């Protein structure tokens, strides 16, 4: 019984494996490590931003957002003792670290009310936050200087960014709209004044879908304020929209008659000129194709640089220089005026076959009686223009060149012609004629007396009578000659036409005319406009909060009748 079967011996095996209990602390350790790692990862990275002041920024509360998604939080606010700027530490979540790039922009979103826009109203209740525009750079950065005002269009938005140089910026400012044919297509984003060129440079942004509207021939101009134009066709009153009065407005387009240019992408143009108004923008499109000299014997009063040159009413060019210095020779007493013909305008009105005739074409034109003349377009304001037209009745001219310029001969028309007619009347030798006539009449009567007195000396009397009659006849012939002179005959007709022209010109301004009625109505409208503006200002000064909250109704009192008093 002693021998126990072997199998009955306790076999003590020392287990080399750890107890299963250890699994729990190990899992705990792993969990702990994972959690530490997670917190470190979750904590993200710290970046610093410098602002001018920390208005509305609170540590651990103010968020960093991108497209209104929270990507981080403000961790610290420090004041730099040297330049007194505020250094704000931002803890960015690791998964969003890719958004922090070299050209990122950061700014504080606070409620803002300016002439052009109201923004950030939501932050009134939620508190300010720091907004991030990621930018497009590949590199990262950890220190930024924050913007004081929000960039109007984030860099990431595709579109056209251009610069406009303006001599006079007017009411245009950051936030002003860019309009194409009355549609808002972009905004002014930045403004800088260059002291060396004395110009204001505006950075503008045009949305991508509209960027094809801008080409190399595009002109930009400021929307003008109130404009009143008075001419023979009536009154034209331009009232700008209220927002363009307050916030300014930029228009652009290709001037009429100018062929659309090439797309900008092929030329890499970034700078444009901002013109004062549409007219200025249009005249800047002028491209001289030919210069001609006209020599005027009449006053050039009213003629100035830019005065239009028209061919039978079609605008073809403008006056460039009026100066005696154009002509070197002292033989010429007339006033030399240099006119330019515009390529665009010529292309608009005339087919190419008519334009490319060169010198031969000019010769033919001069042979056909091409003349330049100064005509009055507006009798009231004395506006003039240079008219080119064919006068086949006038003697033809050959091509004449004075001081390198081809001369277009002139003729006098309009008022200058009336003046010439009056001159002619003055120069007529009427007085000696009249004296002669009186003498003759006196002699005739004397003769008659003589006849009556003495019938005796009849022969002598008859001879004398004959002589007198002959003299009278001679005189009558002379008179008839004068009367038959085409110049004299043309006089009354010419005066009549001239007077009719003047009358026609003044007609619209008379009491029955279109301009008069227009003027009355326009004045009425102006009065209404000014009254509405006055009412609005009264309303705002009475109730400044009515702009945001509407009017505060006041119903406490009503008019009472006698009975209830």
């Amino acid at each position, binding site marked *: 019984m002693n021998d126990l079967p072997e199998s009955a011996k306790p076999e003590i095996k020392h287990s080399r494996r750890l107890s299963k209990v250890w699994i729990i602390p190990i899992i705990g350790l792993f969990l702990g490590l994972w959690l530490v790692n997670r917190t470190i990862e979750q904590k993200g990275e710290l970046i610093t931003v410098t602002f001018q002041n920390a208005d509305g920024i609170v540590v651990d509360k103010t968020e960093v957002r991108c497209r209104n998604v929270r990507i981080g939080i403000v961790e610290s606010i420090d004041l730099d003792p040297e330049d007194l700027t505020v250094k704000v530490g931002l803890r960015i979540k690791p998964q969003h670290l890719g958004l922090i790039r070299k050209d990122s922009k950061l700014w504080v979103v606070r409620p803002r009310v300016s002439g052009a826009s109201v923004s950030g109203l939501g932050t009134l209740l939620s508190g300010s936050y720091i907004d991030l525009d990621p930018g497009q750079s590949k590199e990262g950065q950890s220190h930024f200087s924050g913007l004081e005002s929000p960039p109007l269009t984030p860099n990431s938005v595709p579109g056209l960014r251009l610069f406009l140089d303006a001599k006079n910026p007017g009411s245009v400012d950051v936030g002003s709209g860019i309009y194409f044919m009355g549609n808002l297509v972009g905004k002014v984003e930045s403004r800088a004044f260059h002291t060396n060129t004395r110009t204001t440079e505006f950075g503008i942004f045009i949305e991508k879908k509209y960027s094809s509207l801008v080409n190399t021939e595009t002109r930009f101009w400021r929307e003008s304020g109130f404009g009143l134009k008075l001419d023979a066709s009536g009154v034209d009153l331009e009232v700008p929209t209220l927002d363009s009065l307050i916030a300014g407005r930029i228009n652009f387009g290709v001037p009429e008659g100018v062929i659309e240019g090439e797309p900008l992408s092929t030329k890499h143009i970034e700078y444009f000129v901002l013109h004062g108004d549409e007219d200025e923008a249009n005249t800047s499109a002028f491209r001289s194709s030919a210069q001609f000299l006209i020599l005027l014997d009449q006053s050039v009063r009213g003629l100035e640089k830019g005065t239009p040159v028209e061919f039978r009413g079609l605008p073809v060019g403008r006056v460039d220089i009026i100066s005696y210095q154009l002509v070197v020779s002292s033989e010429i007493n007339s006033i030399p005026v240099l006119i330019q013909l515009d390529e665009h305008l010529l292309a608009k009105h005339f087919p190419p076959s008519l334009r490319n005739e060169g010198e031969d074409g000019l010769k033919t034109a001069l042979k056909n009686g091409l003349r330049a003349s100064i005509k009055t377009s507006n009798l009231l304001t004395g506006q003039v223009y240079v008219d080119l037209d064919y006068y086949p009745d006038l003697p033809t001219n050959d091509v004449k060149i004075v001081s390198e310029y081809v001369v277009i001969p002139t003729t006098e028309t309009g008022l200058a012609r009336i003046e010439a007619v009056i001159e002619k009347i003055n120069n007529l030798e009427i007085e000696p004629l009249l004296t002669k006539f009186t003498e003759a009449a006196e002699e005739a009567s004397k003769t008659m007396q003589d006849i009556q007195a003495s019938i005796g000396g009849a022969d002598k009397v008859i001879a004398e009578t004959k002589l007198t009659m002959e003299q009278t006849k001679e005189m009558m012939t002379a008179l008839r000659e004068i009367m038959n002179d085409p110049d004299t005959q043309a006089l009354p007709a010419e005066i009549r036409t001239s007077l009719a022209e003047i009358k026609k010109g003044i007609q619209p301004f008379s*009491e*029955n005319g279109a301009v008069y009625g227009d003027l009355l109505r326009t004045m009425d409208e102006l009065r209404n406009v000014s009254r509405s503006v006055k009412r609005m200002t009264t309303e705002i000064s009475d109730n400044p909060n009515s702009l945001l909250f509407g009017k505060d*109704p006041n119903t406490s*009192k009503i008019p009472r009748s006698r009975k209830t008093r």
Partner: protein
Amino acid sequence: MFKKSSFLVLACFALLSCGSERNYYVLSPAGKAPLKQGIGLGIGPVNMADYLIERPYLIFQSSPYKMEMSDLHEWSGDLSDNFGRVLGTNLGRRLGTGNIHSYPWNPSSKNRYQIAVDLNQFHGDDQGDAVLEASWRVYALPGRNIVRSHTSTLRCPLEKDGYESLVAAQSKLVDMLSAEIAAAIR
């Protein structure tokens, strides 16, 4: 949190804006002008005292030196225009003419008379009356010779309380004025 508060703001705005309804008033003529043509009458210009046109609201006195007005009771349109047209219709009815023109008229309308009005007072007073004080001139056209120049002061009691009866009384005042002017033309 933000969403909730924005709803709150919206609710506040809504409460503020839907307080009461706004009312608009016009003067009305006492009757229609005849359709038939008659002597040409040109009405205007109607010049109003500044206190009448500065704000579009109906005005009444609560004491001799204090004016009251309410944002909820406005003239519909330009009061001087409304006044001129109603005066014209009333005059046309009294003088038997439909040939009435408002200033500025076309010179081809060949008016026989022009009636120019300076309105100095036109409001409800603190006695329960509507008052009107107007200087008016009748010119014979085309020479523009003065036929009559006169200042009328008229009163008309309000039927009952309220803005509507004030406007009714003021309409009646315009008719009373037209009676005086018509007497000068006849």
